[in-house]
């Protein structure tokens, strides 16, 4: 208890709060730009935190992390550009809603849902971190494989036409096999290109499939619309929609639970959490046919889940010293430079600091919500830029975003190729979200399947004799059946 009081004293100081606010703001800006990831934002601020007291420095980095994830939803909503992989599911409903003249409502829902998801994960982090970490350790290769199969089943749910959706998912899986084989290192489809040795980078694929393809479609559209400049689309009132979101509290809660738990399993491909929640919300919903056309429940599910992911991903990092993905890895570097070694001893030996980190995380979430609340009117102004200028600027930001990831021009070409692919996939009803799911889950599924067989000595029964693995596979089957039934009921054709 004393630790908590000390911790409050560490956080509630003018400079500390200012640092957290600054970090959050930078995160929001970088997250909203395509290509700039949370990991890059944190790495950028890292040297600044050296001279700071631990809670102040870590608080600033936590703010950056929260902000970057939340910022991703702004560009996803307004421009169909998922700023981060976890906001892909947000584009499914938020962008159609924004296009129908309700951009303010879409952003308002996203802000509230993100905030609630973030706060939920902050509570779980401060109360339940050690037992959840213990649970995450029970995941071996068979469990990761089963989890990724479970994730792949979502393709059926986000496809408008099952055969085409599955084909798009398989295209993603196929492209995911490019690069060195994960177990033996044999090059596959690399054609001697060094940049392809580690596989297709997710970001160029993501930005190509979503943003570039969207601009290419807009170019065609530009000559079709009566009035060439749609800059005067009516825009509704931009403000947070507390009541609308709270009405769907069940969606918020279940999505936050999914986000926190998936986030807590290191290397589970955290960005699938928002898809899992989206899928789950669609299955629970009374109006599943509205999903994908600008439905509020879809935005709520995706947004509350991807912000609860942040708190979840801090669990294994703080309790086990194992960062689940790039952003928490940089954050862990930041902690170590501060002289804090993550792991179980952190809780027993440096109580005040760990509780200070928890409180700073709460504060960061509050700042994130406030900044978005005030910023929402500013964000929405983007839509008033004349369309021909906006299209050019989006492309410029896409190119620089992808180039900035690793200063590798090859990725820019890769992005353009994905842009063309995405354009045609959308035009002929295949969709691009399944490709991303395939790309994210493919490597996890393949490497863990083969790893599991390696450890078991070629025994395939490991997948059904281990309880967690078995239950994921069974639930995946049930979900698949349910999706097929739901699609049939709402007349989604198979072939």
């Amino acid at each position, binding site marked *: 208890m004393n630790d908590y009081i000390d911790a409050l004293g560490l956080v509630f100081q003018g400079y500390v709060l200012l640092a957290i606010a600054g970090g959050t703001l930078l995160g929001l800006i970088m997250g909203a730009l395509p290509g700039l990831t949370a990991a890059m934002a944190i790495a950028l601020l890292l040297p600044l935190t050296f001279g700071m007291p631990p809670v102040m420095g870590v608080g600033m980095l936590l703010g950056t992390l929260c902000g970057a994830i939340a910022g991703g939803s702004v560009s996803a909503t307004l421009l169909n550009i998922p700023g981060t992989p976890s906001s892909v599911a947000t584009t499914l409903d938020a962008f159609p809603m924004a296009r129908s003249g309700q951009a303010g409502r879409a952003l308002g829902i996203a802000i509230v849902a993100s905030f609630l998801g973030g706060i939920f994960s902050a509570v779980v982090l401060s109360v339940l971190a050690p037992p959840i970490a213990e649970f995450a350790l029970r995941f071996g290769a068979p469990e990761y494989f089963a989890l990724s199969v479970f994730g792949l089943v979502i393709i059926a749910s986000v496809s408008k036409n099952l055969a085409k959706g599955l084909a798009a998912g398989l295209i993603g899986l196929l492209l995911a096999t490019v690069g060195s084989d994960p177990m033996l*290192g044999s090059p596959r489809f690399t054609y001697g290109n060094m940049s392809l040795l580690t596989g297709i980078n997710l970001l160029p694929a993501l930005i190509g499939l979503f943003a570039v393809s969207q601009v290419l479609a807009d*170019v065609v559209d530009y000559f079709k619309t009566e009035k060439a400049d749609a800059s005067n689309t009516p825009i509704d009132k931009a403000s947070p929609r507390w009541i609308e979101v709270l009405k769907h509290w069940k969606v918020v809660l279940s999505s936050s639970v999914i986000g926190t738990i998936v986030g807590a399993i290191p290397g589970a491909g955290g960005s699938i959490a928002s898809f899992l929640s989206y899928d789950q919300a669609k299955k629970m919903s009374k109006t599943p046919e509205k999903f994908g056309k600008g439905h509020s429940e879809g935005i709520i599910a995706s947004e509350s889940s991807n912000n609860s992911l942040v708190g979840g991903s801090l669990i294994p990092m703080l309790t086990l010293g194992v960062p689940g993905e790039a952003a928490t890895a940089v954050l862990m570097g930041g902690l170590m430079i501060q002289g804090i070694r993550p792991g179980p001893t952190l809780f027993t030996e440096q109580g005040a600091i760990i509780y200070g980190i928890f409180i700073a995380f709460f504060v960061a979430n509050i700042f994130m919500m406030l900044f978005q609340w005030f910023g929402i009117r500013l964000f929405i102004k983007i839509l008033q830029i004349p369309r021909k200028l906006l299209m050019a600027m989006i492309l410029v930001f896409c190119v620089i975003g992808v180039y900035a990831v690793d200063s590798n021009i090859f990725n820019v070409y890769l992005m353009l190729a994905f842009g063309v692919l995405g354009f045609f996939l959308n035009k002929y009803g295949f969709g691009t979200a399944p490709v991303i799911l395939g790309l994210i889950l493919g490597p996890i599924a393949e490497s863990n399947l083969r790893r599991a067989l390696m450890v078991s000595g070629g025994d395939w029964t490991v997948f059904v004799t281990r309880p967690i693995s078995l239950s994921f596979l069974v639930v995946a089957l049930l979900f698949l059946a349910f999706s097929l039934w739901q699609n049939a009921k709402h007349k989604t054709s198979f072939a």
Partner: protein
Amino acid sequence: MQRPIPEATFHIVLIGLVGYFLMESFSIRGSAAGGNLSPAFFPKAICALLIILLLLSLVRVVIEGISNKELEQPREVSFGISVIAWLVVLALLILYAFLLEPLGYILTTALLIFCMVSTLVLLNKQDQKASLKGAIGLAGFSILTSLAIFILFSKGFSIILPTLGIAGV
């Protein structure tokens, strides 16, 4: 289905590409040791499944195309122009990626914005007439935007961008 022929063509292109991947996957080295799967297993399995699904979808497109033949809509007048615009924009982007490193960020970006927007203006009959004043305004906008982004990224985010090496541009 408004345009079954392009859609069928897209299917065939995809099938061709996947077929190529399938062929290539036979030359992936590395064998399956100890009851495990070989590195080529997944690519082969995915390709095979993908071809089946695409064929299935192709058959449906063709059947629908035949039964709805009369329903096929005449192409809009603007169709040709939009295809040209689409190709020009894509060509500009490829050129942009190609020139980005040799010519530096600011110059190429300004050129891209200028060329792309003027393409859209010139090709669009509904848009206001192209004028010298408009062109100068656009040039100014292109340069300012490109400069602003350059400063934001290089100073704000400490990201190194390619430069021409003359006067810091």
